[in-house]
């Protein structure tokens, strides 16, 4: 068992390094990017779907790790199918996912792209804290209704918003059954940032009068890093990874995606709507704390929010 776990881990490590480095269909490991190599030399490269292939070194070039702009930001990272798994048993309403997301995306304190809500499914069942990002649906109602192609589905599964295109009609907001979209109501000082090149992958700088939402941080994926909310969560409640690789990580442990879902009865929100979300939840079975712990640091104003539940 231990051995199996190890080999899986090494396998994952290998494929993660090769995979994250690849933005083109066939790319190379960091160590292979010496462009001075004589022509004709064959380099062994593992593709994102796990095949080992030989490539002429002259045909290779280094992959950009910058956030994509323009058409490339609409294509997505080839070979990827990003997924998120949120372990409800671990969430303690610390709110670090929200704040680190806000920090990473230059948002104000009220713009919650990742929000933790208190859920109670029925009278007798126990409440639980639920971090709620954008679900990056495979059948996204928001993308369907966009009149100007400002929000789109990429081949890596991510639904992005192009704020340069967005006209702010808010139809996507009303179409989203998960209330995942946030409008940029006010012109914030950080929107004035002229130094940063806007990319739909970073959603920075924001623009007043357009829509913002969780973007699964594809710019970080290009750099081989985990999204802000994942690395920000001290409980390790949020896992992020690639369904093609069948691996997700919360920063401290990396596990098999399918096995995690199978072992912990993973499910998706409002499955019956047919939106096919890319965010999975693990039921709050193996709780690390009672849900009341999440109320500890709250003032009266916030406690008032949950009066119907607690």
């Amino acid at each position, binding site marked *: 068992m231990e051995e199996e776990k190890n080999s899986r881990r090494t396998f994952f490590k290998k494929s993660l390094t090769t995979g994250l480095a690849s933005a083109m269909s066939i790319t190379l490991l960091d160590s292979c990017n010496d462009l001075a190599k004589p022509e004709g030399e064959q380099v062994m490269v593992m593709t994102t779907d796990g095949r080992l292939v030989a490539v002429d070194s002259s045909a290779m070039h280094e992959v950009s790790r910058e956030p994509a702009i323009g058409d490339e930001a609409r294509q997505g990272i080839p070979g990827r199918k990003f997924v998120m798994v949120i372990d409800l048993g671990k969430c303690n309403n610390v709110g670090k996912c929200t704040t680190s997301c806000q920090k990473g995306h230059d948002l104000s304190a*009220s713009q919650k792209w990742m*929000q933790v*809500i*208190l*859920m109670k499914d029925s009278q007798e069942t126990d409440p639980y804290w639920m971090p*709620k990002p954008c679900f990056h649906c495979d059948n996204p*109602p928001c993308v*369907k*209704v*966009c*009149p*100007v*192609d*400002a929000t789109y589905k990429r081949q890596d599964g991510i639904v992005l918003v192009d704020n340069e*295109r*967005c*006209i*702010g*009609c*808010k*139809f996507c*907001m*009303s*179409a989203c*059954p*998960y*209330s995942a*979209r*946030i*409008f*940029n*109501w*006010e*012109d914030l000082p950080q929107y004035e940032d002229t130094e940063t090149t806007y990319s739909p992958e970073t959603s920075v700088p924001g*623009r*007043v*009068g*357009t*829509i913002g939402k969780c973007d699964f941080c594809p710019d970080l994926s290009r750099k081989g890093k985990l999204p802000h909310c994942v690395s920000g969560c001290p409980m390790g409640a949020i896992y992020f990874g690639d369904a093609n690789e069948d691996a997700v990580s919360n920063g401290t442990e990396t596990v098999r995606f399918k096995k995690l879902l199978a072992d912990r009865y993973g499910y998706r929100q*409002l499955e019956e*709507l047919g*939106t096919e979300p890319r965010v999975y939840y693990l039921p709050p079975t193996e709780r690390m704390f009672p849900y009341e712990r999440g109320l500890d640091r709250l003032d009266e*104003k*916030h406690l*008032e*929010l*949950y009066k119907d539940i607690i």
Partner: protein
Amino acid sequence: MAEINYDKLLAKFEHPIRKPSRSWWILMAIMLLFLLIGVFALIQQIVHGHIVTGMRDHVVWGVFIVNFIYFLGIGYAGAILACVFHLTRLRWTKPLHRIAELFAIIGSCIGPIFIFLCIGRLDKIHYIFTYARIQSPITWDVIAIVTCLILDFTYLYIAHIRDFAKLRDTKVFKLPAWKKKLYTKLSLGYDGRPEQIKKLNRAQNILAATIIPTAIFAYSLLGYLFGMSLRPGWHSTLFAPEFVLVSLYSGIALLIVLMWVYRRRYQLVNIITDQHFYYSGYALFLLSAGFGYFTFSEYITEWYNVSVTHGKWISKFFDFSEYGGMSLITILFAIAIPLIVLLIPKFRSPDSITFVSVLVLIGLWFKRYLIIVPTLETPYFPIQEIRPEYVHYQATWIEWALTLAGIALGVILLMIFNTLAPVVPVAEMEHEDEITVPKPFYHSIK
């Protein structure tokens, strides 16, 4: 309707056609004032962003989209009424044609203004055309609205040609030279030759037959825009037919109100008779019954067996701390009072029918509010938000000022149209009286 002296009838419209009266200018000034306040509010919204409105992340559209649906509904209803009147050759409706044609155009022009107010980046509005995606119901709506506007304008113009010609030739009052010239241009050389009449009639027939299904479908599209959403309260197959019925209902109500206003203003008691009010009142009655039926079907179906979020939504209509009061107003104004007043002969009079129509117009505005706001306030996931304005929508003065400005703009446009042509199609009525009335078809049965 015989024995009308059409020159005398035309003379009633000397003001404002020849020269607007003082009262016209006073009303115009008041309306312009409202419009100016609206423009000021609009500038506020453009400068400070949508934060100055009551719209927030859950209720993303508020009073603006309510007005959009409302005015567009009035517009489509006007178009349908005018065309149905024309095609069915209901002779008694002749004096009402122009009124319906006018609010068809005005409603369809003002409605879209309100959808622009919902848009965060007006500077990029042309993307709707340059990056149009046919999958989006908004694109359908753009196509539908533009199509209807073109058809309506063409129809309005064709329906005006005879009156333009009459005004060009009239000796009843002396028009200023520029206006005479304008009518000469606009009447396209119409002088009542048989082939002109034939062509005009044919054009009007074809347009009317095109406009009716187009308008019905265009307003249905608006119903689909909401109905196709997955939201509890919107996802309903009833929406499109209900939208069309509500649109006709508000159209008839507005027609009656305008009939009342114009009858008083131009002393048209012999032209817009009491009988006109009674007949329109019957239509109003039927539509209020239809509206009541739709409302009942909607509430009872949603209430009897209900999913969780639907349940939260429907319960808001019976809760007076939520939308109970507003839904009661809708039921009283647009269902109960019209049914009672119009059903009992003793209560029926031109004034009471007009009063009921005003109530209907108010009630149907609230109906649209109830379609939009409670649904947006009831998403699948609970709204856990400490800022109260994000939980409950409350329109700000900006939105109310712009709403009033929209109504004012409607009145202004109506008044401007009134300076161009009489509000009843005088020339057409005259022509109708001249031609021999075709005998009813049963006379040909031997």
